[in-house]
């Protein structure tokens, strides 16, 4: 079953909240991981691996650095969901 944008956003919000302690409602598509959500490069890896496990989309190391906003991550996961 393919996840919708909203499913992915909600799932990511939970993951980011768990990792950083920010309220899940703060995690919206326009927020940047580094500046708005205070996610450093190691936390970003934790978020990527947890998201891989949840959504089944592979997120290679070199892609992780390109995910600037929560929306970028939603789009990447959506485009790389397993068939």
């Amino acid at each position, binding site marked *: 079953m393919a996840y919708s944008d909203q499913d992915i956003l909600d799932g990511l919000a939970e993951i980011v909240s768990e990792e950083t302690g920010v309220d899940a409602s703060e995690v919206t598509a326009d927020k940047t991981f580094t500046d708005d959500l205070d996610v*450093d*490069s*190691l936390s*970003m*890896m*934790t978020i*990527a*691996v947890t998201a891989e496990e949840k959504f089944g989309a592979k997120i290679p*190391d070199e892609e*992780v*650095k390109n995910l600037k906003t929560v929306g970028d991550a939603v789009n990447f996961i959506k485009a790389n969901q397993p068939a």
Partner: protein
Amino acid sequence: MSTLGVPDVLHHARITGIGAYRPERVVPNSEIVDAIDSSDEWIRERSGIASRHKAAPDESVVDMAEHASRGALEYAGVSADQVDAVIVATVSHPYQTPAAAPELAARFGSRAPAFDISAACAGYCHGISVANDMVRVGTAEHVLVVGVEKMLDFTDPTDRGSAFIFGDGAGAAIVSRSETAGIGPTVWGSDGDQKHLIAQRDSWMTLAGDRALPWPAIVMEGPSVFRWAVWSMAKEAQRALDAAGVKPEDLAAFIPHQANVRIINQMVKALGLPKDLPVARDIVTTANTSAASVPLAMERMLREGEVEPGGLALQIGFGAGLTWAAQVVTLP
């Protein structure tokens, strides 16, 4: 036809002694932050490191190894002339050849076989595995295994990704013949496809060809190393538990390579270790001493009474290569 005379009895082996050496000079984060435009708070958040020890300029890898080795021999109650082999794990002995181990053996007046292992942060756990096998088949009765690094000689103080990570020090163990099994099966491996993740910047030959190049420090791709270390190495640590038939609740301690507190914390989570299990966090004041980190951390936990001799410890080393090695051992 003649047959070869070889021993056909396997012995048991265990670690009987542990020793540590931390150089006198302590370097707090405040001394290194300017060169990387950083702060004490940033380094602590990123790594958990507050300070590290730095060897004196004229203090060699062999000098540090000698201090740690004397401690381990004393702990084990083994004299230098009883040592049948000397194994030194290091990547910062600054000679292509000769190795550090023969010089170390000579410091004790020993002519035992002596050789170095180059497996970076996994080197000490490789050494324990090799020593265990030597004792088990009867090649040796006592083996001195040392992890020693003068990493700050190979650190670029201006590199934001690694300048705060490393420290200097030495840890040593004696692996001896024993009545009971004290070293579980080693789970180990390598992944040379990822050799670029942690590496000396340029080869000696590149440097020889262009003397204008900077000193070839050891640098790393931190986030990728973090991902590999946590999610791949926790699986290897679990395999070492399984191979030894040990459950997390049977452990007295978890002693992972002291790479970064964030890695240690995530590994504890990934392995589902009991909340009250003592976990080595020597990194806070010792930083990442590569091959020396596991024995340094073990020595500290025993000395400070955080763990008792006889308990089971899961130890794992992992690092450049990539290489890794893990085993469950009985604490000396």
